[in-house]
């Protein structure tokens, strides 16, 4: 309590200081769901210089500050989509020269003017974790990027946030030799089975292990290949591995490989997660649930032979397994907030549902010092909703990134 008061008074001091710089705005009388903690009513958020300088129910509006009255509105942190598929064509998101390309950066394929970013902003998503496509065994480096900015460099929150590994049928899906094709043909270069996919992952990590031993033994031998260097960072626990695995079989394989090489992995699109809950808990794996709404009552939305169930989110929550809700690669995905809404419909508490698209993904991606919650010192990324955001009638009326309005409806 005392610490809270101290923070507040400190922030107020900061706020009045910043007011002199003429870019101070106070958002008043709002219901605030700050992320990771219970809601506040009649709260005020003071924003200056692209940062939140004060937030609380006892915060005074600094002198000279612009005031936005948010009576009857709800403010949440800008939403974070931890598995966002931008409008990049499959050809541009999946490098075909090799099936293992850990060193490629999806950032190099990103267009800041991508209309999918605009739609994401419109729906309250201010930060996206973008990964390479799912057609390579090891696709490359994902980045955390804000969905708006004048300068692409300034949009990047974290450049090398993850490396994507893909289980299942996708990396081998298109790899069939044309009739009469030769085995050495370039069309026949990649694995054609799950066995082949897993072997490609193993071989890459064996190479990385070998490279680590070599550099430890004889540092003069020069740096290893760029892709291998990325995987050594995974093995050292310095880089997050995100393994896309949907069916129970692929989930078990993902956990087995991670255990074998001793790295932790996040499991992406884990439709069958409820089947391997104990194993996930044992390896403290974090789960990304892609488009849980696509699990229709008629049993649709299954991919890679998975059997998605509406009860999955609730099951993971009850088991204490950490998870985030994403839109992912599911073609039937909805705006992120609606995915959280469906999770709430399927039994998740409203705060948990909202945390799963704000503070939890921020923690998972290691960017919670800047985004994912509303607190003094954090980036002023937030959304003013017309009503409770989990209401199907809710509209993201105003969306702010770094204190700047990036989407206005009504």
């Amino acid at each position, binding site marked *: 309590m005392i610490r809270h008061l101290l923070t507040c008074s400190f922030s107020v001091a900061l706020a009045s200081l910043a007011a002199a710089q003429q870019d101070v705005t106070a958002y008043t009388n709002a219901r605030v769901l700050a992320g990771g903690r219970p809601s506040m009513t009649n709260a005020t958020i003071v924003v200056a210089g692209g940062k939140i300088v004060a937030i609380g129910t006892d915060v005074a509006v600094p002198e000279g500050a612009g005031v936005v009255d948010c009576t009857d509105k709800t403010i949440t942190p800008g939403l974070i989509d931890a598995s966002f598929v931008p409008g990049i064509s499959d050809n541009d998101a999946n490098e075909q020269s090799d099936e293992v390309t850990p060193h490629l950066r999806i950032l190099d394929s990103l267009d800041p003017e991508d209309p999918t970013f605009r739609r994401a902003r419109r729906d309250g998503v201010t930060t996206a974790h973008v990964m390479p496509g799912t057609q390579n065994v090891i696709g490359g480096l994902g980045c955390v990027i804000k969905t708006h900015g004048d300068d692409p460099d300034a949009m990047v929150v974290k450049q090398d946030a993850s490396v994507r590994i893909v289980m299942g049928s996708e990396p081998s899906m298109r790899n069939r030799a044309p009739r009469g094709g030769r085995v050495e043909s370039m069309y026949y270069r990649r694995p054609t089975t799950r066995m082949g996919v897993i072997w490609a992952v193993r071989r890459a990590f064996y190479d990385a292990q070998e490279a680590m031993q070599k550099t430890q033994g004889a540092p003069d031998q020069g740096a290893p290949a760029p892709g291998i260097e990325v995987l050594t960072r995974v093995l050292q626990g310095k880089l997050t591995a995100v393994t896309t695995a949907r069916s129970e079989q692929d989930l078990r394989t993902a956990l087995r490989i991670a255990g074998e090489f001793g790295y932790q992995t996040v499991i992406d699109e884990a439709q069958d997660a409820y089947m391997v809950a104990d*194993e996930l808990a044992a390896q403290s794996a974090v789960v990304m649930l892609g488009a849980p709404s696509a699990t229709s009552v008629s049993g649709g939305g299954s991919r890679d032979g998975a059997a998605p*169930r509406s*009860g999955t989110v609730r099951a993971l929550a009850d088991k204490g397994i950490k998870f985030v809700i994403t839109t992912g690669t599911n073609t039937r995905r909805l705006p992120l907030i609606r995915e959280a809404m469906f999770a709430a419909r399927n039994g998740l508490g409203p705060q948990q549902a909202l945390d799963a698209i704000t503070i939890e993904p921020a923690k998972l991606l290691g960017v919670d010092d800047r985004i994912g919650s509303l607190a003094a010192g954090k980036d002023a990324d937030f959304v003013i909703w017309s009503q409770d955001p*989990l209401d*199907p009638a809710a509209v993201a009326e105003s969306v702010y990134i770094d204190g700047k309005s990036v989407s206005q409806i009504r």
Partner: protein
Amino acid sequence: MNLSLTRIAVVCVTTALPAICQDLVAVKAKTIHTISGPSVEDGVILLQNGRIKAIGKQSDVEIPWSAKVIDASDKVVMPTWVIAHSSGGMRGSNESMQNVPWLSVADAVDPGSTFFEGMRRNGVGTIHTMPGNNTLMGGNGMVLRPAGRTIEDMTVADNTGLKLSLLASNGSRLQKVREMRRAIADVREYLADYNRQKDEFEKEKAAGSIAEDKEWEKEIDRKKQAAVDLIEKKLKGWLYVPSFAELGEALRLSQELDLNFVLGNNLDEALPMLRRLKQPVVLTANLEYFETDPETREEEQFCSAKMLADAGVPFALSLGDGPSANPWWQLGTCVRNGVSRQQALESLTMIPAKMIGLEDQVGSLSEGKLGNLQILTGDPLDATTWVEMVVLEGELVYERSKDPRLQYLFEAAEEAAAPQESQKEEGK
């Protein structure tokens, strides 16, 4: 429209056997949304022989001792939803031939289809089933209730209207319009020829060249009957209008035929024409769409429900796949785009009921109407609300606690809630 209310007729017959069929059901509710009038708090609805006998406050309506009581005192009760146009639950909704007005959906509906199960789960009680959109003159429709093992059980009304479509599936729009015009002209020619022959017969009979006792026997070709009824305005046409581009032609057709419109998307370009619509229209399930300005690349989102609301045209909503299969999602989408809550609710109840000519039977709760009720865990526009029970004509046809498919989808959560030692051991 030729309504043969077979289902309702059955209910009427049962009233003749009061001793056996004096079915009294009382539903107690926290809130009753009547839709047509104000909501009732702490209310009760009394159903007798499948119809609403009384509705009011629990303090005002006496529950007879013989009534079966459904206690939903902590729940919301409202009329079941009415769907004005749907092609669900059929095994093949369009014949590959385009001009087949003599067909009927009765021969394609599969009562065991999961579609009807889904409708019950979502609180739908009345569905106007029509041939699909991939047709020219697609056949006759029926009003069904999503409960029963045979089409006869499910039938509320048949011969409800002829499906017409301007969807250009192969070929251009103009070609489709031409085909429609040709098809209508063919029927007119046929009818003119038929009437001319009949007139000649009567004339000859009057002139004495045909025997006195001989009567005109030739009937209208069965394959032409529905189309003849359409052009004689004895049968309503339900015209699918895929986009703004076909709306002009649709309006012209409506001057000579009795038409209901089923409107697709991209209506923003036809706003002035929308204002000319006089009767209610059906909107397809996808209510929101984006358009990109070809010059600026700026995207704009449109909502067809909001556009029609602004144009003053009443509309009925449809249900689709994915999230739009949920009535609360469709209503929420309307409200999110600025349509009033009441208008949204009416567009899944009273408006579609009116469009299918059953406004005195379904779509709102008042004395004398069919006892079609849904019992909800909360507000109908809330995402966390579930349909707890559905009562159709006084008969309980759905209970969430006995829905095997829902149980299957949620058992993962229930298993997790109960610690399972045996599974852990197996895992090792």
